[in-house]
C-alpha cells in the first residue's frame, strides 16, 4: 500500500519481504484454516499476520528473524560474553529466551564435538532498577518484581546465568542513598518533560555500560523491536536529531565501550507479545505511567498509524535504515580470525560497505550522539566556552540543559562523573582536531538558528 506507483522510488526489491507472504496468502485464500507455511496445522489468530501461521511456524519465523540478524551481523561469536538488558517487558523477555536457546544449542554442539574447539558464549542478565526515578512506585512492588525476575532467570535451563540487579543511581558511583538524592536533584533541574525522560534513557545506557564493563561482558544485548525503533525514528526527527539518527537504528552500535546489539530489530511488538502469550513466557510489568511530552505524543501517533496499516512501523524503520550509517554501526573486529569464515562471508553479503558510512569523531557528551558539522560550527562560535554546554548537541542543549547560566553550574555539579569525563574528552582531544578540519568554514559564522 505504501508502495503505490506514485511513491515507490526503489526498484530493487523494496518490499520483497512483504510481498512474499502476501502472494502466498492470495493463493491460499480459499483454505484459510491451514497454516500457510506447513500447510498442516491450524493457524493461531491474533498475530500481525492475521493468523496465517500455526504456533510452531509463527515461533520459528520469529526465531528466524532473530537468528538472521545475529548471524549476518556477527553479533555473537563463541568467545563472547553477552549481557542481556532485561526490563521485564515482552521484548526483553523474548530476546532473553532466544539468546538462551541459542546458547543451549551451542552447548549441545560443544558437548557433542570431540575436540571441543568452539567454546560456548556466556550470557548474563541485568535489570536496572529505576525506582529512584519513578518515586511513585512503592518499594514493595519493586521488591516483588525483582523477586519475579530472579525466578524467571533461575528457571531457565542451564547453562546458568548470572543476574545483576543494579539501581540506576549507581552511575554516580556513590553509596545508594546519596545517589538517589543526586539523581532526584539532577532530574528536577531539567524543566522539559521530554528532556527528563530522555535524560533517564541516557543514564540507563550509562548504567548498562557500567555493569557490562565491570563484569567482563563484551556485548550488550537490547530487546529493542521494530515498533520501538519506529517511534525513535519519529521522535529523533521531531527533536532535530536527523544527523545522528542513523546511528541508533542499525543492528549494531559499537560507539560505546561495550558494543550494543539489537537482534530483535525486525520483530514487531505485537509479535513479541504474542509469543510471550503463546509460550507462557512470564513478563514483569511496572506501573511507570505513560510517556508524556513529545515521546508520548509520538508513540500514540505511531500506534494509530500501525493500526491503519500493519506494515507502517516496518516502513518507517526501513526508511531510517536507508540513511547512511556511521562507521561504528558494525562489530569492530571484522578481519579477526575468531570470526567464523561463514559469518564473515555473510557479513560481506549483508553488511554495509565501509566506504558508504560516515566517520564521526565527536559525540555529544550527554546523549552520546555523533555531532554534525553544523553542530560543531555553532558551538565553536559559542561565546561562553563552557565545557559541556559547548560540546553538546543542539537537542540536548534545548531540552535538558537549564536555560539560565546560574543554574548551569548546579546542573554540572550533579552530573555523573562519566558524562563529565566524556565532555572533557570531547573538548580537548579530537575536538580541536575537528576544529582544524572545519577551519575554512569558520570564517562565516552566520549560523543564525532561529
Amino acid at each position: 500500500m505504501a508502495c503505490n506507483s506514485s511513491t515507490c522510488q526503489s526498484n530493487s526489491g523494496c518490499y520483497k519481504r512483504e510481498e512474499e507472504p502476501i502472494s502466498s496468502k492470495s493463493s491460499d485464500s480459499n483454505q484459510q484454516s491451514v497454516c500457510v507455511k506447513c500447510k498442516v496445522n491450524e493457524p493461531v489468530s491474533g498475530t500481525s499476520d492475521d493468523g496465517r501461521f500455526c504456533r510452531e511456524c509463527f515461533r520459528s519465523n520469529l526465531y528466524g528473524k532473530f537468528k538472521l540478524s545475529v548471524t549476518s551481523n556477527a553479533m555473537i561469536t563463541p568467545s563472547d560474553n553477552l549481557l542481556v538488558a532485561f526490563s521485564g517487558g515482552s521484548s526483553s523477555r523474548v530476546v532473553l529466551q532466544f539468546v538462551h536457546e541459542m546458547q543451549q544449542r551451542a552447548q549441545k554442539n560443544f558437548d557433542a564435538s570431540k575436540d571441543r574447539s568452539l567454546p560456548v558464549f556466556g550470557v548474563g542478565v541485568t535489570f536496572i532498577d529505576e525506582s529512584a526515578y519513578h518515586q511513585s512506585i512503592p518499594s514493595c512492588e519493586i521488591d516483588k518484581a525483582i523477586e519475579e525476575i530472579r525466578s524467571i532467570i533461575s528457571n531457565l535451563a542451564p547453562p546458568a546465568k548470572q543476574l545483576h540487579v543494579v539501581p540506576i543511581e549507581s552511575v554516580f558511583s556513590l553509596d545508594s542513598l546519596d545517589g538517589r538524592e543526586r539523581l532526584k536533584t539532577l532530574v528536577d533541574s531539567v524543566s522539559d518533560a521530554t528532556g527528563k525522560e530522555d535524560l533517564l534513557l541516557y543514564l540507563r545506557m550509562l548504567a548498562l555500560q557500567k555493569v557490562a564493563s565491570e563484569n567482563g561482558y563484551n556485548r550488550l544485548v537490547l530487546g529493542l523491536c521494530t515498533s520501538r525503533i519506529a517511534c525513535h525514528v519519529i521522535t529523533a526527527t521531531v527533536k532535530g536529531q536527523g544527523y545522528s539518527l542513523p546511528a541508533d537504528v542499525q543492528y549494531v552500535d559499537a560507539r560505546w565501550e561495550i558494543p550494543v546489539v539489537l537482534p530483535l530489530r525486525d520483530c514487531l511488538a505485537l509479535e513479541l507479545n504474542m509469543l510471550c502469550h503463546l509460550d507462557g513466557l512470564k513478563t514483569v510489568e511496572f506501573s511507570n505511567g505513560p510517556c508524556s511530552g513529545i515521546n508520548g505524543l509520538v508513540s500514540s501517533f505511531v500506534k494509530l498509524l500501525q493500526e491503519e496499516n500493519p506494515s507502517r512501523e516496518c516502513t518507517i524503520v526501513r526508511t531510517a535504515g536507508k540513511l547512511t550509517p556511521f562507521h561504528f554501526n558494525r562489530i569492530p573486529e571484522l578481519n579477526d580470525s575468531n570470526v567464523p569464515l561463514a559469518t564473515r562471508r555473510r557479513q560481506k553479503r549483508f553488511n554495509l560497505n565501509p566506504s558508504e558510512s560516515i566517520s564521526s569523531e565527536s559525540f555529544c557528551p550527554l546523549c552520546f550522539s555523533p555531532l554534525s558539522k553544523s553542530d560543531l560550527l555553532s558551538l565553536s562560535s559559542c561565546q561562553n566556552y563552557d565545557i559541556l554546554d559547548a560540546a553538546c548537541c543542539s537537542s540536548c542543549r534545548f531540552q535538558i540543559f537549564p536555560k539560565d547560566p546560574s543554574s548551569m553550574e548546579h546542573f554540572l555539579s550533579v552530573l555523573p562523573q562519566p558524562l563529565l569525563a566524556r565532555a572533557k574528552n570531547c573538548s580537548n582531544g579530537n575536538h580541536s582536531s575537528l576544529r582544524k578540519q572545519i577551519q575554512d568554514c569558520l570564517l562565516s559564522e552566520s549560523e543564525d538558528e532561529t
Partner: protein
Amino acid sequence: MEEAVTKPTKKGGGRLCCICNQRRAALKRPKTLEQICRECFYEVFEEEIHQVIVDNQLFKPGERIAIGASGGKDSTVLACVLAELNRRHNYGLDLFLLSVDEGITGYRDDSLETVKRNEVQYGLPLKIVSYKDLYGWTMDEIVKMIGLKNNCTFCGVFRRQALDRGASLLKVDKVATGHNADDIAETVLLNILRGDIARLSRCTSIVTGEDGPIPRCKPFKYTYEKEIVMYAYFKRLDYFSTECIYSPNAYRGFAREFIKDLERIRPRAILDIIKSGEDFRISTSTKMPEQGTCERCGYISSQKWCKACVLLEGLNRGLPKMGIGRSSRGFNNDPKRDKDMKQSNGTKSIENKQCGSLDF
C-alpha cells in the same frame, strides 16, 4: 490563532513587548512564545524572511519573479511581504502574480477575484493561465467525467505544468511559492512514513527544479503557518479561505494534526523536523531519469509523452484511468523506461501542495 493573542490586562496596562520594551505586548509569537507588540511582530516576521532570502541567495538583482498566487493566506502574505521587502531592501526584482484557474466553480472563481484585488492592492501585474485554455478541460468537467477519485492527480499534474507555462509566458527567471514551514515539516514526516527515501532527500531544499526550465523557491521555508495567519489577520489582508470543494479537508491529514499537536507542546518542533530533514545523510545511488521533452507538447519529460499529455489523452479518449496507478501503460509502454516513469511520477509533487496525504 485567537488563543495566542494575549488579552491585555484591564488594569495596569499589561505587559510590555519584550523586544522594544515600549509598547504593550499584543500577541504571543507562535514560533518563540515571546510576548511582543504588533509593530515588532511585523518587523521580525518580515526581517526573518529577508534573512532567509539573503542567506540562501534566492533572488538576484534584476530578476523577474512570479509569485504563485492562489488567493489563499500563504500566497497573499507572500505577495505582500515580497513586494514590501523588494521596496525596502532594493532587491531590484520585477514581481508578478501568477495564478492558475483550474475551473472549479464556487472555489477558484471566487479566489481569483481575491487575486485580482491583490493585483491592485500591491501593484503587481497578474497573469492567469487556465486549464480550459491549456488543456481544453476544466476541473469541473474532469470531475464530472471521472468522479471524486483521483481527481487530485489530474489537478496536481496539470497545475505543475500550468505554472511553468504561465511562468514562461511571463518570461520570469523564478517562481516563488508560498510553502511554509508546516508544509515542509509535514512532507518530511510523510516521506519517512511512506519510505520514500529519494524524495526525503530532496524535500527540504529551498530551491528546486534548477535543472528544469524555471526553478522554484520557497521564501517561507522557515515561516510558521500560524504566524502567516497572524500577519494576515493583523494586517487585515484580503485573502480567500475556503477549501477546495473537490477535496475538502485535504489538508487536515493526520500528519498535519500531529504537527499541530507537536507545535502545542514544543513550538520549535517544526523547525527541528526541517533541520532533521536537512541533516539526513542519504547516499544518492538512485539514478535520476534522463530528461527529455514531450513529443506532443514539448514540455520537459523523461518519457515519450509527459504525464499531463498521458492524462489528457485518457480524458479525450474517454479512458480516464489511463496514466493513473501502478502500471501506467498506454503511450509510454517501453518496458525499459517503465522504471524511470515511476520515479518521474513522484519526483516533483511537493511543488504542488499535495492533496490527500497518505493512502491507507
